[in-house]
């Protein structure tokens, strides 16, 4: 969603658009009252469409500056509760073969939109902290030494935030299988590939069959 008053210049555009839209409504209403109502409704629908994103443009890729020639492979993992599976462990083992690995696990503080807008996200972060601690313990048992941090509720934003301080060589997105994964429905993997100039690997972890 675009915030129409995210800064002064955007708010100024809203003024100009309101002026133009109002002129159209008034002109239409002077011709016929019902026409004015129709134009008003059409303009409201167009405004809502624009606020919800309009014709979405492909976002500019975020460039990640990495140190070349370092014998360390930095892997950024974003996962909610799917760290327990052997699929992820096997993948991390393959990625770090022959080099030392530096794994950062990001656990997004998932929150409902209603809670985000009406309350704070302390509860979501607390729950994410519990999941993160449990996940790090499981990874340690599986032989993967990783660090962890809590991220934004939006997994893409969490990745972007983490990349600012952790110039990863690769991103791993761990999800439930298709049909049970909200992230896959939201296109998190595809959007991550578009948004970051870092190889993105998707690993499916089926906890129910494990």
């Amino acid at each position, binding site marked *: 969603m675009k*915030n129409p*008053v*995210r*800064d*002064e*210049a955007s*708010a*100024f555009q*809203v*003024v100009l658009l*309101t*002026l133009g839209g*109002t002129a159209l*409504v*008034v002109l239409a*209403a002077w011709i016929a009252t019902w026409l*004015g109502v129709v134009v008003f409704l059409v303009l409201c629908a167009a405004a809502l469409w624009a606020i919800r994103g309009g014709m979405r443009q492909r976002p500019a890729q975020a460039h990640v500056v990495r140190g070349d020639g370092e014998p360390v492979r930095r892997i950024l993992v974003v996962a909610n509760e799917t760290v327990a599976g052997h699929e992820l462990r096997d993948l991390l083992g393959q990625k770090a073969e022959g080099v030392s690995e530096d794994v950062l696990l990001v656990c997004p*503080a998932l929150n409902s939109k209603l809670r985000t807008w009406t309350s*704070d*996200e*302390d509860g979501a*972060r*607390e729950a994410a*902290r519990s999941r993160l601690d449990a996940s790090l313990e499981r990874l340690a048992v599986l032989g993967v030494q990783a660090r962890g941090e*809590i991220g*934004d*509720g*939006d997994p893409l*934003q969490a990745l*972007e*935030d983490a990349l600012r301080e952790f110039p990863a060589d690769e991103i791993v997105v761990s999800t439930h299988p298709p049909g049970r994964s909200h992230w896959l429905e939201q296109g998190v993997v595809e959007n991550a590939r578009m948004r970051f100039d870092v190889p993105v690997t998707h690993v499916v972890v089926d906890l129910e069959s494990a």
Partner: protein
Amino acid sequence: MSAHAEAAHDHGHHGPPPANRSSRLDPTTLGMFLFIASEAMLFGAFFTAYFFVRVVNPDAPAEWPPPPYEFPVFVASVNTAILVTSSFTIHWATQSIKRGDRNGLRAGLVVTILLGSAFLLTQAIEYAHVGFNTGDGAFASVFFGLTGLHGAHVFVGLSLLTMAAVRAFKGHFSPDHYHGVEIPGIYWHFVDVMWIIVWAAVYLL
């Protein structure tokens, strides 16, 4: 309790824990966004009353305003031009400080304040000569209610802009720090948008 809060308490920190915040939106801008959303709802309530009196009410007058009263459409239109111009000048002020032009910032703020004051003064004169009062019917009540509510918002906006202007003349703003101008600017644009809608609904339609 969040990890941040735990860390803070471990170091003997007193007072409330640091707030968790998203990197997606600046908190002050979010605050102004939510404030404007609540203000839009307040205006929505007044518009509901206005359209009820004018359209839904079975005793609604066939002509608006009911004869023999008339609204000063020309004066209100001139006032609209004044307020729309003030949106351009506050935009000029904000763009100036983004470029590091402090004189442009000061000039833009002063001109905006003068235009806003001219709007309020014209509205006060309009009230004095409009020829009816709040007791002359529901149409008069909603007229004074809507335009008066907006006038109160102009007054608040002028107060915010005056504070920003005082700070500007003290040299408080720079191309990296101009939130104190931008936030009142967003509010001022909101006030302008609401007036355009009030003007069209009450005076033109």
